[in-house]
């Protein structure tokens, strides 16, 4: 007996040595800029929290790394002629992390939860248009809307529209935010608020051969310099965002790759069209001519931005290329003269952000405007001041905002959410963010009509018309579209920053 054991042990030892390389744990660490607020995407409003929950949650639809809609848990869908109901076929044989089945019932439970105002979820506004969610059969679900809403599939693809395990919802109730259970490639392991969020491979994942790494740890590191140091020491394999001033440092490192990805983050300066002198379209055009967008991109964004090519940035569905608006200070001065302001005027310029880039932008704009005789006093607003002074102004007629530098990215990747909250007359603050107080009935009509039709060609026509009108009216100074800077280790692949600054790591792998 004694003798026979030895070769077995030796054989075991041999196999384990041989096997080690194949089982070497692949652990990815991603350093991100701020702490996560919650692990319940229906109660999150920050892009980052919604980006990391993608590791354990999936929706019926999703966006690929270029913001194209792809079916995820859904197989296909059918919209009714009147645009009021959507029937979605689901994939079969998918299980949640807790072992329960993913089916139409789970979809119903999830969406009934968010559409019930008693649950007080922050994403209520995105889904409140759903009147009913019905189970047709185990793998078919039907959504009925209160009113037609053509980008409904985009709303379902939004990172908050995920399916949560009904069993887990029942078990944890409100604490689901600390104990997420979904169908994603990774299982939730631990969330230490101050330190990290850790997820590990889910062996029962429905997509065979995925995920390719064992764990991902998301570490919030607020300081730019510290994130960059972690990349250099190899303590992290991926980081986003990389601040412009660090770009050059990281570019030179042989083991790192710096990526400038296109974005749908649009930067503009709105002008209060209810107030003199901005009620005069000539003044608004003059201001557009007065700003050198190329120089702005170089000065404030270190070249990691492109001059705005239209009302909507490329990458948003239905965006039309109309620009960039030419830089012509002589014409700007002429227009101001025609408008009755030969000596310019005094006004104020606020920035919605008080970070370095925001401050650089408004100082640059101030100088450019001074060239044509407009004296602007600048102020970078802190978040609370912004809410107080701009977003909560009750009466449009007395709103204190004049020129206002701000940005937007359409979280549904579609034209509706890039125009309606910002440029429709129904969206004056405090309701939404039409800080230009822009009102053009033709534009309002285009936007409203486009919501009701599901016909692609018709929508294209309506949104093209709206964008052309807005461009001509110039309620904004159209400034730049940002690029998103991230850095990753050379041996990391498949970790992308999407145009809306969310992450896509479906294909993540570590060599």
């Amino acid at each position, binding site marked *: 007996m004694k003798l026979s054991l030895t070769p077995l042990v030796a054989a075991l030892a041999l196999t384990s040595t041989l096997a080690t390389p194949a089982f070497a744990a692949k652990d990815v660490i991603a350093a991100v800029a701020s*702490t996560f*607020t*919650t692990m319940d995407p229906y*109660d999150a*409003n*920050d892009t980052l929290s919604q980006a990391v929950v993608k590791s354990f949650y999936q929706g019926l639809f999703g966006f690929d790394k270029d913001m194209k809609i792809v079916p995820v848990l859904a197989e296909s869908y059918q919209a009714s002629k009147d645009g009021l109901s959507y029937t979605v076929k689901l994939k079969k044989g998918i299980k949640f992390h807790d072992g329960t089945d993913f089916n139409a019932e789970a979809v119903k439970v999830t969406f009934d939860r968010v559409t019930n*105002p008693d649950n*007080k*979820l*922050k994403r*209520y*506004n*995105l889904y*409140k248009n759903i009147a009913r969610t019905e189970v047709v059969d185990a793998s078919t679900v039907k959504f009925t809307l209160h009113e037609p809403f053509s980008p409904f599939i985009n709303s379902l693809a939004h990172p908050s529209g995920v399916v949560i395990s009904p069993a887990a919802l029942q078990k944890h109730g*409100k604490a689901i*935010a600390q104990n997420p259970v979904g169908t994603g490639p990774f299982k939730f392991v631990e969330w*230490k*608020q*101050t*330190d990290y969020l850790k997820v590990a491979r889910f062996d029962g994942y429905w997509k065979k051969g995925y995920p390719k790494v064992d764990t991902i740890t998301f*570490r*919030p*590191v*607020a*300081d730019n*310099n*510290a994130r960059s*140091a*972690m990349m*250099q*020491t190899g*303590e992290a394999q991926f980081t986003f965002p990389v601040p412009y001033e660090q770009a050059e440092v990281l570019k030179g490192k042989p083991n790192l790759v710096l990526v400038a990805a296109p974005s749908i983050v649009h930067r503009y300066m709105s002008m209060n069209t209810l107030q003199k002198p901005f009620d005069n379209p000539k003044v608004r055009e003059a201001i557009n001519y007065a700003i050198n967008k190329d120089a702005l991109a170089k000065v404030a964004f270190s070249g990691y931005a492109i001059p705005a090519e239209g009302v909507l940035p490329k990458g948003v569905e239905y965006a039309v290329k109309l620009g960039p608006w030419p830089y012509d200070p002589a014409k700007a001065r002429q227009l101001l003269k025609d408008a009755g302001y030969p000596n310019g005027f005094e006004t104020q310029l606020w920035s919605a952000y008080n970070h370095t880039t925001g401050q650089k932008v408004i100082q640059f704009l101030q100088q450019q405007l001074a060239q044509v005789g407009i004296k602007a006093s600048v102020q970078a607003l*802190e*978040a*609370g*001041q*912004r*809410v*107080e*002074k701009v*977003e*909560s102004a009750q009466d449009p007629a007395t709103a204190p905002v004049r020129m206002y530098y701000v940005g*937007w990215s359409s*979280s549904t990747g579609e034209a509706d*959410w890039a125009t309606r*909250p910002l440029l429709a007359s129904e969206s004056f603050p*405090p*309701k*939404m*963010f039409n800080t230009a107080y822009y009102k053009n009935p033709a534009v309002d009509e285009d936007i409203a009509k486009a919501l009701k039709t599901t016909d692609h060609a018709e929508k294209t026509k309506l949104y093209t018309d709206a964008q052309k009108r807005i461009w001509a009216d110039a309620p904004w100074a159209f400034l730049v579209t940002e690029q998103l800077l991230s850095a990753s280790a050379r041996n990391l692949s498949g970790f992308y920053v999407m145009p809306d600054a969310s992450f896509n790591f479906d294909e993540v792998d570590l060599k």
Partner: protein
Amino acid sequence: MASYLLKRLLGLLPTLLIVAVLVFLFVHMLPGDPARLAAGPDADPQTVELVRKDLGLDKPLAGQFVDFFGRMLHGDFGTSLRTKRAVSDEVGDRFMPTLLLTLASMAWSVVFGMGIGIASAVFRNQWPDRLGMTLAVSGISFPAFALGMLLMEIFSVQLGWLPTVGADSWRHYILPSITLGAAVAAVMARFTRASFVEVIQEDFVRTARAKGLDERVVILKHCLRNALIPVVTMMGLQFGFLLGGSIVVETVFNWPGLGRLLVDAVTMRDYPVIQALVLLFSFEFIVINLTVDILYGFINPTIRYR
């Protein structure tokens, strides 16, 4: 002594009460609507109202005030508006890292600061004094964030000896505690020197030397003890400041401490967290002051408590 302690502890209550009232009013006077901030950029007014109700911000100020006090008396500080976790958990998670970092920085800066201070006083206007005071002035003038970034660049990125961020092992404590303690050590050095120089010229020192005592005994026993009172006062104040969590150092080293929590809370208008933190900081200061007062008695037995 016991009755003195009791009196001081009872005195704590009205102070804390006044702080709590002031903080509550102050926080609610900050511009910006927390419901709007919490609801995020995509929210419409209906959702903002939902969030407002969820956070209990729809009640009138007086009602919120009564709620806040009622719960506080039961030891419940409410839930964070941002993360919806109990405030006591939020603060509790971050208290220990800040406390440990503070203790580590205080320990080495007291040893170095007093060492340099004593050496400078004993060798007044000679080279140890010049060297020590040059160091001290540099320590006060060099901004903490720059020192932190410099140390990280040298020891983590270039040499690879120490980790960059986090608070997991003792090695993580080295760089942040040096960064945090540099200014304290400098202040301590200057205070010790000033107070020592005064004491060293006193008559009793001359007497001690005249009766033939060893110079070391004169310095470390007679002088040090008498020079200690202002130094201990300073030490207490510095300790209190550090316990508040250094915003700069905690940001640079991503330290999971109270300073960062406070910044996050103020940005998001997270009222309950701000209130709890300010109350905690006031409480810490009061306790430290009390401890310092009691320490006086041990240093100088002629001090009596009534």
